[in-house]
């Protein structure tokens, strides 16, 4: 039994950290934040060239054939760098496509891995939650196929990506259809969420034509693919929060060691030390939960679905708490726009709610433990 990362996994972490710290300084993240176009195409091509887009997919699908632990390793580093790229969205969509692979999707997956194609998943209706069974958006049959009209909300990076995998109802069954974001009748409106380094969109579909080739999956196959890919994306969101927590924890500790008040470093006061100790406990516990979930899902362990819900519930609560404590220990400077803390606080804050917040995850756990 070995909980620690293997040597190749540690090397992957070092490579990811080195690449991102060299190419994605926070000054660059702030430049994207200030511009209309958040998606950093140079960085995207860079990480695609490293093979990280779809690295957990089989090699015949353009992946590296690595596992979900490796996915967590690189995503953690992206969280630590606050990377402004549609990695989470594309990972979610690529995982979904790979679950239902046919010859068309394999070629799309290869383009995604090369960095020339990006995608996201449009799951939630305007008035539904993260449960796929609650989707009501209907496909209407036409002579040439179907027509899609409806309103999806909180779609990750919608306007920045090429393709949306849209979850709909085909008669009574759940289905996934592929829609180009440039297709006629697709309108993406950004919502002004807290995290200015990642956009969420309201997407309206008005009579968008869907052909047979755009029908990705139907029925149980669609539900299983959506649920599995959402779990993979949830693990990635946990790892991203973990990377952000790690940055906040380390930055706060450095500050506690150097900032002086009353002629002593503030880290020499127990009140501050205990905040730092709690931040370590929460970050390391989040690490144990997130990496366990990644491992459990990759080997299809009996408790894998529950472990993902546990990881997301714990990371959501702990991530928020670590961010808050970090601001508190920094004092006034930690509350300013100038300090980088808020970039990570906001990244965590959106991740806290993506794919279901802690309360939503606890209800998923309750369903599994209460007969």
């Amino acid at each position, binding site marked *: *039994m070995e909980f620690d990362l293997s040597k190749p*996994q540690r090397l992957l972490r070092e490579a990811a950290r080195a690449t991102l710290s060299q190419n994605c300084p926070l000054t660059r993240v702030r430049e994207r934040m200030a511009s209309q176009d958040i998606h950093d195409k140079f960085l995207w091509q860079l990480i695609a060239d490293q093979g990280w887009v779809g690295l957990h997919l089989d090699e015949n699908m353009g992946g590296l054939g690595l596992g979900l632990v490796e996915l967590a390793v690189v995503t953690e580093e992206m969280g630590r760098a606050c990377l402004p790229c549609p990695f989470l969205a594309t990972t979610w969509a690529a995982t979904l496509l790979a679950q239902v692979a046919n010859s068309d999707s394999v070629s799309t997956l290869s383009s995604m891995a090369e960095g020339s194609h990006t995608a996201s998943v449009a799951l939630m209706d305007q008035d539904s939650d993260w449960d796929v069974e609650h989707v009501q958006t209907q496909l209407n049959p036409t002579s040439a196929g179907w027509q899609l009209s409806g309103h999806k909300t909180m779609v990750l990076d919608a306007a920045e990506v090429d393709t949306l995998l849209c979850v709909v109802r085909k008669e009574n069954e759940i289905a996934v259809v592929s829609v180009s974001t440039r297709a006629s009748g697709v309108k993406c409106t950004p919502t002004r969420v807290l995290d200015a380094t990642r956009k969420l969109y309201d997407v309206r579909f008005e009579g968008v034509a869907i052909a047979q080739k755009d029908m990705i999956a139907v029925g149980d196959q669609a539900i299983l693919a959506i649920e599995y890919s959402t779990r993979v994306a949830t693990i990635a969101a946990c790892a991203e929060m973990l990377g952000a927590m790690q940055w906040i924890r380390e930055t706060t500790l450095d500050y506690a060691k150097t900032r002086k008040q009353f002629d002593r470093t503030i880290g020499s006061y127990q009140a501050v030390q205990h905040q730092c*100790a709690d931040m370590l406990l929460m970050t*390391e516990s989040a690490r144990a939960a997130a990496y366990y979930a990644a491992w459990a899902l990759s080997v299809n362990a009996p408790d894998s679905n529950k472990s993902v819900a*546990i990881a997301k519930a714990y990371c959501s609560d702990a991530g928020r708490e670590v961010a808050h404590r970090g601001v508190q220990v920094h004092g006034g400077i930690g509350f300013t726009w100038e300090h980088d803390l808020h970039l990570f606080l906001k990244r965590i804050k959106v991740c806290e709610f993506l794919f279901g917040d802690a309360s939503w995850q*606890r*209800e998923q756990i309750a369903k599994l433990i209460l007969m």
Partner: protein
Amino acid sequence: MDLTLNAEELHFRDTLRGWLLANVPPPWTVPLKSEESKRAHLEYLRAWQRMMFDGGWAGVSWPKEHGGRGITIIQQSIFQEELALAGAPQQLGVIGEGLVGPTIIAVGTEAQKQQFLKPLLKGEHIWCQGFSEPNAGSDLAALNTRAVLDGDHYVVNGQKIWTSFGHVANWCLLVVRTDASAAKHKGLTCLLVDMASQGVAVRPLKMMTGDSEFNEMFFTDVRVPVANVLGKVNEGWGVALTALGNERANLGTGLYMMFKRDCDALIAKAATIQRNGKPITDDPLVRQKLAQAHLDLEVFRLNSLRTLSGMNNTHAPGPEGSILKLYWSEMNQRNAQIALEVLGLSGQSWDFDEGRWAFNYLRSRGNTIEAGTSEIQRNIIAQRVLGLPRSY
């Protein structure tokens, strides 16, 4: 990262599981109210310890040359898990096996190893530890029990408190002050004391639970042979820290299994309760609370596994043990509270489930105090893990 058990670990688990299946006695059911029932229970536990010894399962973590199996820390975790799964009786020699024995192996003389290790594993010697004093709790090195050399004996005078197993132990690992003029960490010595010695008195200490799990011990002119000094004279602080390091590191899996029994029992109990004609497990707030208790416990399990795996690689208990101690003690308090909230006012009755939830709640208040308070654990984490300066 691979959490599956390897072939050696699986073999160990299966061998142990087979032995437990054939040997675990029926559970003890007589209430421990009378002195007679307590004595009989002690003999029941002692007989179990002897069976474990005869089967080769006592002191499994000890090196082979000292009667153990030299198993890895991962196998120790499996050992605790299997014992709990098999419903095995509580281990009587937990302080001896986990804390005193490893310390004797580390720093004891050849004669001490000969004299003490085997009787300890057989359950003939039950050990307690005499560390804390009324005026030396978190500041353990301020302890004031004195030992003065008189010929080939030390003469001990003083008082110890919070002694687990003090009422049944026949030996004590005692920390005393042998040099009152030295700095407080430097004048301490560890002694191996026969509890049958003239001048030793033990008095049970009644807790807020109503139970007497701990004791006070009084030493009046107790004579201890010089041969029973463990480690070097005036170097007892290092010896005590060796012992305490084992204490914090060893407990994870056994504790998890104990808390899991409570958490599973709470969920099972909740499923039987109706309020206003509806099962309480349909109430979204109750569901949130039960799920939170379950996930908190699972995160503790994962923290334990990760710490074990790390120790398996470094072969040493590190200050990370403090993170685990902090986590489980506060988690158990949260979950004991959740049990009362889920069960409602009747849950805190001594007549409900034989007072299980009332007891757990009260007992959990001690968790953040015993074996190093949460404040001390946070100091250790801040200073020894995070490298912050000494603080006051």
